[in-house]
C-alpha cells in the first residue's frame, strides 16, 4: 500500500491554496523491470476528488502521464480557519486513499 497523502494548506484571506503530494508509483506500463525482461504493469491514479467541508470542489480524471508521486495544487475560495479540506484518490487497480485535514 502506498504511503499516506501529504497536504499543505496556506490560507490567504478567504482563499486556501492547497498543495498535495500523493505517493504512488504511477507506472505507465511502458517500462521494463530492472532485469530488463518483463514490462512493469500499468498502475496509476486515474481519479482524484477534492472536498471543502465534505462538498466536492474538484473532480479530476488522470492518465498515466501524470508524474510519479503526483503533485497537485488547487485553490478553494470561501475558506476559513477550521474548515476541512479532503483529497481522495483511486487508481486503476481500485485502490483508494483519503486524507482530510482542518485549515489552521
Amino acid at each position, binding site marked *: 500500500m502506498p504511503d499516506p497523502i501529504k497536504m499543505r494548506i496556506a490560507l490567504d484571506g478567504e*482563499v486556501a491554496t492547497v498543495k498535495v503530494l500523493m505517493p504512488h508509483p504511477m507506472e*505507465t506500463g*511502458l*517500462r521494463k523491470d530492472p532485469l530488463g525482461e518483463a514490462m512493469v504493469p500499468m498502475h496509476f491514479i*486515474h*481519479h482524484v*476528488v*477534492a*472536498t*471543502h467541508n*465534505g*462538498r*466536492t*470542489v*474538484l*473532480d*479530476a*480524471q*488522470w*492518465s*498515466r*502521464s*501524470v*508524474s*510519479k508521486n*503526483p*503533485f*497537485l*495544487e*488547487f*485553490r*478553494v*475560495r*470561501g475558506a476559513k480557519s477550521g474548515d476541512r479540506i*479532503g*483529497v*481522495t484518490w483511486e487508481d486503476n487497480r481500485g485502490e*483508494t486513499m*483519503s486524507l*482530510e485535514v482542518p485549515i489552521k
Partner: protein
Amino acid sequence: MASDFLHLQHRLRRRLLARLAGLTGAILATTTGLLAPIVAWAGARNVEAFDAKAIDLALVAAGVADAVESEDVILRAPDIAENSAIVHVEIQSKVPDTRSILIFAEKNPQPLVAQFDLLPGLEPIVAVRIKMAESAHLRAVVLAGDRKYFARRETKVTLGGCAG
C-alpha cells in the same frame, strides 16, 4: 391492436426499469457516502479521449477540436524541462464560469494527460506535474458552458523518455 398494446406495455416497463435503476443508483451513492464521506465521484471518465493515441483524435474525442485560442487561458510550463518525467504545469483561466480544464501533451503516446472538473468554490487555477515523452507542445483547454478556449506552448525536454 394487440401488438400496439404489447408495444406500449414494453415501453412502460422499460421506463419503470430505467427509473428503478436511477433510484438504486441514488441509494448506492448514499450508502457509499456513509462509508466514505469524501467519495462523490461526479464526472464519468471519457475513456475514448484518454485512450486516443494522437492529438487530433484526442481533441475530437474530448469534444474540444473546435476550441478557440485565447489569452484568457494562461498555460505556465518551463521552456526547457531538465527532467521529462517531472514537468510542472500550471493552468489558469480568466474565462467566466470555467467548468473544466484539460491538459494535453501533444506527443505523448496518449496525449490527454488530465481533465479537471471545477465545482463551485474552486478558483480556476490548477497545477500538476506531468511526464512528457519528448519535446512537444502542451495544450490547455478551458470549457465554460458551450464556450471552449485553448492555449498552447512548447516545452523542450533535455532528458528523454517518459518511462520513469
